[in-house]
């Protein structure tokens, strides 16, 4: 495809387009063939993530494709950076860029771009609202990192404190843009410090402010002029059209083991289909080459399996990254003292955990996929602890009643309902946003709990409303999917109230995130978890991180904040039989950009 352009002189020959030391990607199966289009689908705006996850993952460093979530930096590998060095005290990180590396428009990529990205984009608070920006990994212990540029290809990022998570959060990248990767030569024009006539430009482009204009120009999904480092460059933008198309980046900096420039595939085409059901039909018909989003739910697997021969595709496995399919989070910092007293009673939670028939949930709601479990790391994770995963998961009504009696709610009314401290029956509602399986699972759990004298009403609602109520601490209990099954150290919110995602104790989380200014002071054990995690962030070596996280998890198991139900089994994606180099198993987590960590640039179509 590019040979003609080279011949006509429009494009320099490949040796001049590649950096001096291109990144060598080992193909999953074998060296592939050039050509072809990867046909996939998107639901359009609001689904930018699928573009990020397929063609938008090119950071300074990245995750190795056989990622397991081990602590430390062993699984972080160089990407745009040719290499990196970490100082003894884990405070300074020195990166080397590749000489001769170029943006997709042919301009060189040097530390000038990094310097610009650091000073003018990522650390500018006014721009934090733009998708992809915000200090994120460059912030540590409340202090911003400093950047020191040594020459065109070497720079150092330094922190005041040892930083144990910097490389891994850089590897996880951001949404919509990879941290510190931005083309200076293109974007300068849209920043007031470089362009005195910016106001006129904002006016003529029809925007209200230069920030809005910058946001539009910075977006590689909708702006086809934006130079990228990605394997494919978007030529038909995400917008009102019926598809998004990306063509190969002639300056892409990676080669295969035979020295061929990647990517193999000429183009990626995302057909816009508003409804996942329509996408499912397209997949069954064989109109999709490789896909692992939107329709890959357990419920759709049988239908897809049946149409495999006709649609000429097969499944690949997604190694589960979730810690639980459904976690019931009681509001331990409930505004109402009465309810808080009940929910913070550990025996009450243990009793209710024993009352849930998890095997029934697995069989009826989750198509016999998954294992009864509390919220816990996956067995493949180095943090797995069987005791933590299985405690109180045994279905035992007598034991459940015993615990609830011990909790102090032995008295019942004439209908057998247990009475709370105020002498009234204990009733509460569990709010949820109607994610797949929630409704059915909660109906079963509600019956199970009624059998031990506790009245629970599932309360489904629109996701926005759910979000509002959750954030205003205005609920009895909620359910959600629990993350942190494999990305344990990076996603600890499910094991301790460390962020506003920790719905089981949002006021404690607030206390932590605001440094004790807002929220409520949590019990000593929880505070110890905070200290452990802070320590972990300052610890660079893998063993140290492992040790601290294990201690933190131990406290989680003892505190038993929330009730887990089912640990998910493997997920799946579909891949055409003509489409090669897709691994049979890909780790599944947003944090590692599934499937981008399996190197889509080396996927190929048999010609």
């Amino acid at each position, binding site marked *: 495809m590019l040979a003609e352009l080279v011949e006509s002189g429009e494009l320099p020959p490949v040796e001049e387009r590649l950096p001096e030391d291109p990144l060598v990607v080992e193909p999953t199966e074998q060296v592939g063939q050039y050509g072809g289009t990867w046909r996939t689908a998107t639901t*359009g*705006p*609001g689904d930018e*993530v699928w573009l990020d996850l397929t063609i938008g993952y090119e950071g300074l460093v990245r995750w190795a494709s056989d990622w397991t979530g081990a602590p430390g930096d062993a699984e972080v590998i160089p990407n745009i950076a040719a290499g990196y060095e970490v100082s003894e005290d884990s405070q300074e990180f020195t990166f080397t860029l590749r000489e001769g590396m170029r943006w997709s428009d042919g301009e060189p990529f040097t530390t000038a771009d990094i310097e610009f990205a650091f000073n003018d984009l990522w650390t500018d*608070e*006014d721009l*934090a*609202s733009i998708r992809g920006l*915000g200090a994120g990994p460059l912030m540590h212990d409340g202090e911003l990192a400093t950047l020191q540029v040594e020459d065109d290809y070497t720079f150092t990022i330094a922190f005041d404190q040892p930083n144990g998570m910097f490389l891994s959060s850089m590897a996880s990248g951001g*949404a919509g843009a990879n941290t510190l990767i931005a083309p200076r030569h293109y974007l300068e024009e849209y920043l007031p410090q470089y362009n005195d006539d910016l106001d006129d430009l904002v006016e003529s482009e*029809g*925007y*209200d402010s230069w*920030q*809005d204009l910058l*946001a*539009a120009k910075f*977006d590689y999904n*909708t702006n086809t002029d934006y130079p990228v480092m990605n394997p494919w460059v978007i030529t*038909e933008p995400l*917008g*009102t*059209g*019926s*598809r998004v*198309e990306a063509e190969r980046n002639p300056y892409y900096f990676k080669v295969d083991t035979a020295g061929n420039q990647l990517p193999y595939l000429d183009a990626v*085409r995302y*057909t*816009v*289909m*508003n*409804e996942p059901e*329509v996408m499912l*039909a*397209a997949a069954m*018909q064989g*109109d999709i080459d490789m896909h692992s989003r939107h329709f890959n739910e357990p419920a759709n697997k049988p239908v897809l399996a049946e149409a495999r021969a006709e649609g000429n595709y097969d499944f690949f496995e997604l190694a589960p*990254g979730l810690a639980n399919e459904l976690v019931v989070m009681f509001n331990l910092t409930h505004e109402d003292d009465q309810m808080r007293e009940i929910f913070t009673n550990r025996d009450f939670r243990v009793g209710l955990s024993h009352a849930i028939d998890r095997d029934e949930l697995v069989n009826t709601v989750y198509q016999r996929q998954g294992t009864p479990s509390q919220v816990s790391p996956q067995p493949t994770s180095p943090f797995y602890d069987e005791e933590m995963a299985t405690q109180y998961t045994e279905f035992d009504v007598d034991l459940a009643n015993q615990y609830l009696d011990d909790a102090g709610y032995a008295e019942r009314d004439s209908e057998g309902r247990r009475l709370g401290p105020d002498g009234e029956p204990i009733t509460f509602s569990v709010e949820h*946003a109607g*994610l797949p399986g929630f409704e059915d699972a909660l109906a079963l759990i509600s019956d199970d709990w009624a059998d031990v004298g506790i009245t629970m009403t599932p309360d489904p609602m*629109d*996701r*926005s*409303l*759910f*979000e*509002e*109520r959750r954030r205003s601490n205005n609920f009895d209990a909620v359910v959600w999917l629990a*993350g942190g099954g494999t990305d344990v150290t990076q*996603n600890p*919110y499910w094991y301790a109230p460390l*962020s*506003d*995602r920790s719905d089981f104790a949002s006021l404690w989380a607030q206390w932590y*995130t605001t440094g004790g200014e807002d929220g409520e002071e949590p019990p000593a054990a929880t505070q110890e978890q905070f200290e452990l995690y802070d320590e972990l962030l300052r610890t660079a070596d893998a063993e140290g991180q492992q040790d601290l996280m294990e201690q933190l998890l131990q406290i989680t198991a003892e505190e038993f904040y929330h009730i887990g139900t089912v640990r998910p089994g493997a997920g799946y994606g579909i891949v055409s039989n003509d489409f090669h180099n897709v691994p049979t198993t890909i780790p599944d*987590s*947003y*944090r590692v950009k599934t499937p981008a960590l399996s190197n889509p640039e080396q996927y190929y179509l048999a010609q």
Partner: protein
Amino acid sequence: MLTFIGRRLLYMVPTLILISIVAFAIIQLPPGDYITTMIAQMEADGQSMDAATIEALRDRYGLDQPFYVQYWTWISNIVFHGDFGHSFQWNRPVGYLLGSTLPFTMLLTFSTLLFTWAIAFPIGIFSAVKQYSIGDYVATTIAFLGVAIPNFLLALALMYIALTVFGQPVGGLFSDEYASAPWSFGKFLDLLGHLWIPMVVLGTAGTAGLVRVLRANLLDELRKPYVVAARAHGLTERRILLKYPLRVAVNPFLSTIGWVLPALVSGEIIVSQVLSLPTTGPLLLRALRSQDMYLAGAIILIVSVLTVVGTLLSDILLARLDPRVRLGAR
């Protein structure tokens, strides 16, 4: 007639102001705003957003301002600058988004309308004149089915047939090879090849409804004494039918012309969504779902304005055609 029109035009001003306020208010009624939708979406993917960023976003989009300030900014920009604002979700001017979907929406609605009338008129007349004939029964049965079957179900069924029998790809208005190609005869044919599904789906219910209305009205008229009188004067059946009863029976067609105007812009939402058509319907649905209020507000406002204008137009047409309406208005 002129005072009639003038008075109607005057009434339209307060109506439109009220509509614009209600439209803007309704979009804001659901809990949360665009940012909450955005956060919810990110969380479903396992991402999170810190409080400072949320604050910055609300500030950038002006969502923390009181209702009347937001409304005034919105409406004054529309009235004084013709600027419908920016869509949050698409990060593009609303005007641009409408500009790229409106032509297809109008094409679809217009061709559907022609299809509907071309079929409904003859069938309606036929089944009234030949009441209780086999043809009437067939037409009536089909008409009832058309009214009873929800459009989206018909769309799904046709899609299934197109897929299994003709092997035509699902949804859209163009095949892959023409999607981004410049206009050509081939592309036009390709468009026609795709257009028939939504046209038939959307047309069926409309056709069925019109057939029933026309038949009922015509039957009423055909039994009236003036028809008998005309026949006694020796006029031909054809002339009697076309000149008098049909003219009265056609009223419902004209009074629904007013609804055609807004439909040209809004299109059919559910069918377009199912068939993944690049029309304004799915655009509106998505905007409402994500509380992308300037986009949703613009579409609702335009549709409302066109409804008001359309109603005026059909009233004028009716007044021209039917002296009773004209005299009643006086």
